[in-house]
């Protein structure tokens, strides 16, 4: 029997499996090291798919970009193998800048045939981490606080909302995902919408 370590790659992939199995979510970008996944893609209204942006060789990339046209949401996710790595020194600043840069690129694509119609989509920051034991409410709260603070002042993204995905490895080796959310006063999302989002992934949802 082969055993696995819950690396960032596996934590991220487990969530991508939920995305692939969902009906409403489209994976526009995911960041393994190479292969045909190095560019951001989108689907036009006629369902044809094309590259809409290609990262430079030294350009920082987010880990996952998801689109849900029904909910009018773009979710830009930063991922680590543990929640503590998301709050390592300078990490929140670095990750926030990456998300902001990605959002800026997407906003610049209004005339692109494959991006057209998504100008008004809400761009939300997502954090994803792996956990071999359940993270504490305190650790999640601290992480979300740090990211909200970092995002203050950024434009083009919803700076009042964070969605977190925890990929949890049970003793049985089974991986499950849970959605956590923080909605501040000006959040573009409602609690009901977070429930719809969680439902679309087929996972549980909890406030943070």
């Amino acid at each position: 029997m082969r055993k696995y370590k819950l690396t960032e790659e596996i934590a991220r992939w487990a969530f991508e499996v939920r995305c692939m199995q969902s009906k409403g979510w489209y994976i526009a970008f995911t960041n393994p090291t190479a292969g045909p996944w190095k560019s951001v893609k989108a689907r036009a209204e006629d369902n044809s798919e094309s590259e809409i942006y290609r990262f430079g060789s030294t350009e920082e990339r987010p880990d996952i970009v998801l689109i849900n046209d029904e909910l009018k949401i773009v979710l830009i996710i930063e991922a680590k193998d543990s929640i503590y790595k998301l709050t390592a020194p300078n990490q929140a600043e670095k990750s926030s800048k990456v998300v902001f840069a990605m959002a800026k690129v997407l906003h610049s694509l209004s005339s692109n045939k494959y991006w057209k119609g998504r100008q008004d989509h809400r761009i939300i920051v997502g954090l994803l981490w792996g956990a071999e034991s359940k993270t504490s409410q305190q650790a999640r709260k601290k992480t979300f606080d740090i990211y909200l603070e970092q995002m203050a002042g950024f434009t083009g993204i919803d700076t009042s909302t964070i969605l977190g995905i925890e990929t949890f490895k049970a003793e049985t080796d089974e991986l499950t995902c849970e959605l956590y959310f923080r909605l501040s006063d000006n959040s573009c999302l409602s609690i009901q919408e977070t429930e719809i989002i969680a439902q679309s992934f087929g996972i549980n949802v909890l406030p943070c």
Partner: protein
Amino acid sequence: MKKIELEIWADSFHEGNWCCENIARIFAAEGGKHHIEYVNGFQPTFHILFKNIEISLIIFGSYKSWEPIPKKVAEILNWGKPDFIAYDPAFDKVLFAVEETAATATGNQTAQRCERQYGSLRFGIPYWYLVSEYGMHIDGGARRDSIWPTIAGLKLSIFKRTPCLVVHYSDIENLEDYQAGKGLDMLFRSITTMLRSYSNGQPILENMEPLLKEQYDDMLHFLISQWSNIVDFLPSLEAIQNDDTAERIAEFAINSPDADMEKVKDFLHWPLIQDLPNEIRDNLAGKCLLKYDKLCEMFENDVSSHVAYTLSNNAGSGKPRTTSEIQGYIQGQERKFNSVGLNPLANFSLSIEHFPFTNKQETHRHTTTAKNIVYLYDRWGDFIKSVYSSYPRLQGKLSFIDIDAPVFVYVSNSIKLGRVFGDPFTGQIAAYATAFGKFDQQPRKVVAYFPHQVHNQVFDKNGSTNKGITLMPELTDLIIFHGGVAVDLQNGKIL
């Protein structure tokens, strides 16, 4: 129904999943069906039903995440990581390995992935390299793939009697487009053909000869149309253009009893100077260096004296670096340099003044010595004469090789500490050593020269290993470092 369970080991789940999707697609086109099950909520297993056989492919994404990795898979990984490897746990057998890249490698990255090609072939594992033939360079222009992985693939197929293919996708109208060109289809038609034979209890390469012939034919046609953009001449052009050659190579790849070494004698063998085409030999002339290095100057002089030759009169130079970058690199090398135990001692002499400016603004400097990175000597004796003249401390120490042995010299101008055993150098040495004759019937000795790197990095790994440390002892006969410190990795000696 007959069932067979195979493991697909992959650099990432995406690559493993992509492999299985394409296999399922080809089977589907022939009437097969499939469904996917996720073990433990994340690990895809493709169950492919085809006629009376069920092939289950379970993906192990991200090599480093798993334990234990099958020993035979781990052995291959030591030589560089292919993107995916198929393994049969029931018979402890690796079936094939594949490297694919989304980009067209240009410049010194063209052979970057060839250590994986060599690594798989040395274990007799059929290997495919799927690469974009036409790609977009950073300058916005289109670039075409290099000939070196193809040449190494053709030669390894013969030497190791195992398939070693380079298959191209994209075309000039559709740069880096997987759906354009034949490569993607060829790769997965080959894989599904092998899986079909294997799951029927036949040898894995049964029924592969026509497909291999077609792919070798494509590789030969690629060489015909591309060689003159890269080198001034290509040996065996007549054989490359012969319609039968692809079939001859396919016979070697499947290890057919019909494979006859006489029929491919001297195929892609880079000749001695006397056998060069007249117009090439008559025009051999050394070139000026961009940054002075005595040994590189001797190499160029030896080209002028017709005791060595180079491949192209049109070689490019490496990326210029800023003064502060180079100063930092020199400091790193100097900190690592230690001559204790050497007899005679070697001197550290890298200095920023030795790196000339590339522009009037004096912001960037050359690190390139000679533009050529490949020199082919007829005789070891002539090569070491230049080495002794440049580095007197080596006088008399390099006579352990027959003075009449021909030599291939590879020069790397890398200067950043550690840029010896990683990318792209390991791949370049693997490709060039193969291409220029390490395994030829009349083999060439292989020497790597790193004028800006210090030798102390070689045995400073505290027992840890990487693909370069694994590969270099097998493929090089000598490495010469800064200050004229030579290392014989095969015998673990510093000279």
